[in-house]
């Protein structure tokens, strides 16, 4: 009897929706939008798992049909092993065959653990809905955004990591039903001692706009205007590798191949020449603006919009004009 029930059960697409301090991150809505697209292709529904969130019904706006809501004091701080185990139990409960996660640092941390636990083939950095569901084929970035790779996932359960800001948010009003879910939490071997996180600043990973500056700024004392431009735009601040190597800015701001990847809607590069290692890390950004005195700087070849001019004149000027523009909006 049990077996018959299992066969008839709809195998929904399961999506892990990340949150912070009880509120969903933007990537949560993006992965739900993606999961909905996959569910439509497969003719099934979307089940989301959310951990310690205040209002899980919000996920319905992007297509979730059901939310498994976990409330656990043991999951208050992120732990890859514990979170992975909770998601795995949700996948098993729902008998899901496709599992969707984001490309945040936390999701990329737990994904390989989850893949092994589920015997699932895992494709990361996926940028589009599957081009085919049988064989299950996805397009992912490779060679640090210099190429794309079409990959098939051959296993029974498929794990897809969606590149941040690649699929976008698609509103899809469903009435999401919410159900309490209490996975068992395994013993963990990695314990968080302290977290050092600027709560008042937009992180590079979550930012729609990133304002980045390089050695052209001449010294750390000149970053005031960069911070101001970022604050006018609601942007995160970033920097080139030489700037972080020189200690002008913290390492956490270094973007590029060996630094943080950027996939924002708008990337503004000020006084950055555009070394290939830098461009590799920021290539996934949709629109790129460069401000540089040197019209021969390689960044002009990679950018959509450029201003040839002195940052010390252009940036303060741009800040004033943007303030006026924002005031009119």
């Amino acid at each position, binding site marked *: 009897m049990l077996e018959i029930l299992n066969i008839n059960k709809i195998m929904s697409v399961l999506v892990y929706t990340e949150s912070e301090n009880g509120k969903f991150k933007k990537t949560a809505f993006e992965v739900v939008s993606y999961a909905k697209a996959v569910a439509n292709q497969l003719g099934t529904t979307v089940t989301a798992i959310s951990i310690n969130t205040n209002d899980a019904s919000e996920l319905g706006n992007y297509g979730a049909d059901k939310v498994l809501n976990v409330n656990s004091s043991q999951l208050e701080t992120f732990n*890859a092993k514990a979170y992975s185990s909770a998601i795995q139990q949700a996948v098993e409960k729902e008998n899901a065959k496709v599992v969707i996660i984001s490309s945040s*640092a*936390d999701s*990329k*941390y*737990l*994904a*390989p*653990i989850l*893949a*092994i*636990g589920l015997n699932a083939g*895992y494709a*990361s950095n996926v940028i589009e809905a599957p081009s085919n569901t049988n064989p299950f084929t996805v397009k992912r970035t490779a*060679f*640090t955004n*210099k*190429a794309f*790779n*079409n*990959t098939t*996932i*051959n296993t029974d359960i498929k794990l897809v990591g969606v590149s941040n800001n690649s699929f976008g948010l698609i509103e899809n009003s469903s009435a999401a039903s919410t159900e309490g879910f209490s996975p068992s939490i395994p013993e963990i*071997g*990695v*314990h*968080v*001692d302290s*977290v*050092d*996180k*600027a709560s008042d*600043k937009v*992180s590079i*990973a*979550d930012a729609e*706009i990133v304002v980045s500056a390089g050695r052209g700024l001449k010294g750390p004392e000149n970053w005031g205007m960069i911070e101001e431009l970022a604050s006018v735009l609601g942007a995160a601040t970033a920097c080139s590798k030489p700037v972080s*190597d020189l200690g002008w800015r913290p*390492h*956490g701001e270094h973007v590029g191949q*060996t*630094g943080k990847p950027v996939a924002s*809607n*708008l990337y503004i590069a000020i006084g950055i020449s555009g070394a*290939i290692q830098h461009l590799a890390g920021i290539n996934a950004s*949709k629109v790129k*603006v*460069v401000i540089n005195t040197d019209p021969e700087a390689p960044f*002009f*070849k*990679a950018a*959509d*919009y*450029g*201003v*040839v*001019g002195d940052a010390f004149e252009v940036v303060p*000027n*741009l800040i004033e*004009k943007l303030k006026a523009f924002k005031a009119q909006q």
Partner: protein
Amino acid sequence: MKILVCISHVPDTTSKINFTDGGSKFDTNGVQFVINPNDEFGLTRSMWFKEKQGASVTVVNVGGPETEPTLRKALAIGADAAIRVNTEAIDGFAVSKQLAKVIRDGGFDLIIAGRESIDYNGGMVPGMIAELTNANFVNNCISLEIDGTNATVIREIDGGKETVTTTLPLVVGGQKGIVQESDLRIPNMRGIMMARQKPLTVVDSVETPTETSSIKFEKPQPKGAVTLVDPDNLDELINLLHNEAKVI
């Protein structure tokens, strides 16, 4: 302490990325291969453990004979021994299965791998080998201290960092910060000579299921030319970003 550093053999960043055989294969013609930068940071940190704490350091790569110069370079930097698992690196899972066997057979208690390779960018191997060998795992490691069997690790998170404590056996996904760029070592002549004498063992691969298959590569559409805006006409830039690009 027995350290295993996983080394990916990748095209140098400045390489031209092209594909052959109808887009199914990476074109290695004229491409220079290097130690994956994220792995090199970890290798350099392992040299510190070797010199200060008496650790032994083995490097490993999963790949064909063409990857051996990259392993020799790691030996020249200072690793004691190298292992090459003789099979094509098909995907992160297949590589992890091979590495898990090397880890079990060799009894390694600290495994350092880069957070991702700069060719496939999968970011899968460190977490998968940890799970396959039942070791603790910390990703995006920017600082690593070992005291006996206890480890203190700083992990980069979105928007900050986090300090965690754990125990060996441990796998870390390393990146810049575990050592600084200026700490990287260029092999000297003595190192290169000594590397020739060090053991490079080739081992057979184990059977693995093919969980994912690469079908075809594509290159992005060529980008249009930049639109230049006069520095005296920044209103036009705001207009373009608002009305044309629709990003502000």
